[in-house]
């Protein structure tokens, strides 16, 4: 029995300093919960509305850790298929990342024309170009968006209020950096990698 414990401990340590390092603390520790429930009216939801599993990410388009987590989320979605719905909420760390707010506004402006997820993916796949708005604009053109409206809404900060609401909902839910994930409404304190996320999601089924 002690053999299996050792195996488990080895698996959970050594990767990162960010996760709980002692089991003593995790046993009495309760992770914060998502304070604002997911709603189809407001949230960006990818996957079936009635999926059993919900993964919420609070993310920043300029954050390198979010960039690293982006393909991990794709892996999770591929693995869990229609069992999962994935929700993205904005958490731009504007004091650290000068392009984060503009990128969030870009995704929201695309969302207003029904192309949130395509733009969301594009931004994460082109993180290095976030300082150059013409790149996302070119993509908006290729997507067939009304680029006049798209540019105007970004320039007028039409969606900044919504983005700030996302941010504060994250703060109230215990978002402690980016990316922060919630697995069926509970903050995921483990690694932001597919394996750990899939394991956490599957555990909620038991």
């Amino acid at each position, binding site marked *: 029995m002690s053999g299996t414990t050792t195996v488990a401990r080895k698996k959970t340590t050594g990767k990162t300093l960010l996760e*709980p390092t002692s089991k003593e*603390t995790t046993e009495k520790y309760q992770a914060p919960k998502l304070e604002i429930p997911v709603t189809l009216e407001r949230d960006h939801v990818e996957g079936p509305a009635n999926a059993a599993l919900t993964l919420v990410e609070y993310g920043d388009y300029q954050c390198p850790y979010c960039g690293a987590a982006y393909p991990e989320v794709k892996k999770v979605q591929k693995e869990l298929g229609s069992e999962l719905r994935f929700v993205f909420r904005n958490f731009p*760390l504007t004091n650290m990342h000068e392009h984060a707010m503009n990128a969030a506004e870009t995704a929201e402006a695309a969302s207003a024309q029904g192309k949130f997820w395509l733009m969301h993916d594009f931004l994460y796949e082109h993180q290095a170009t976030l300082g150059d708005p013409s790149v996302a604009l070119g993509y908006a053109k290729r997507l067939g968006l009304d680029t006049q409206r798209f540019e105007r809404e970004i320039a007028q900060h039409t969606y900044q209020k919504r983005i700030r609401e996302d941010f504060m909902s994250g703060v109230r839910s215990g978002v402690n950096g980016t990316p922060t994930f919630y697995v069926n409404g509970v903050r995921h304190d483990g690694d932001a990698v597919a394996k750990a996320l899939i394991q956490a999601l599957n555990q909620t089924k038991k």
Partner: protein
Amino acid sequence: MRKLESKGAVRNRPRRLLKTKRIMKTEASVLGPGKAAPNFSLNSTPDQKVSLNDFRGQPVILAFYPADWSPVCTDQLSLYAMVMPEFKKFNAELLAISVDNIWSHLAFAKDRKLNFPVLADFEPKGSISKKYGAYKEKIGESARALFVIDHKGIIRWSHLSPDGINPGADGILSALENLNKPQPSENS
């Protein structure tokens, strides 16, 4: 699967529970609500000191953290810098404290664009952290502990985070909200 089974098994082992109890006891040493917050005077720059008593009459948030530059702290304090406008709605002041020296703090605060004082509990090392029960003797660092102190200098909320867990700002905001509610025991 194997991991899950072992976790369950571990929880049921009496020896394990004993160990947990012992650790909880040592961890429960942070000053709790109702206690007077010990005053301190610590350097925020090489030639400026900040005292807790300077802020009497307004709420103060104390954020003890282990070290400048470690990734978790970076997230925590950067987040607080972003949430500062919300703290300010309660007229609250935030003071971050670790045992790092002032030159490290200055570079760290500049790099992370921190908009609140970062205080050096440097000499005698950790003496203020110890007074708050927020010091880890074995590793010689402050624990990751939060305190919300009211306008009279009384601790109204405290929180010790488990190792490696960044506490976020939700607990602080709830505590600040609760400050404005009538206190059941105002005789403290």
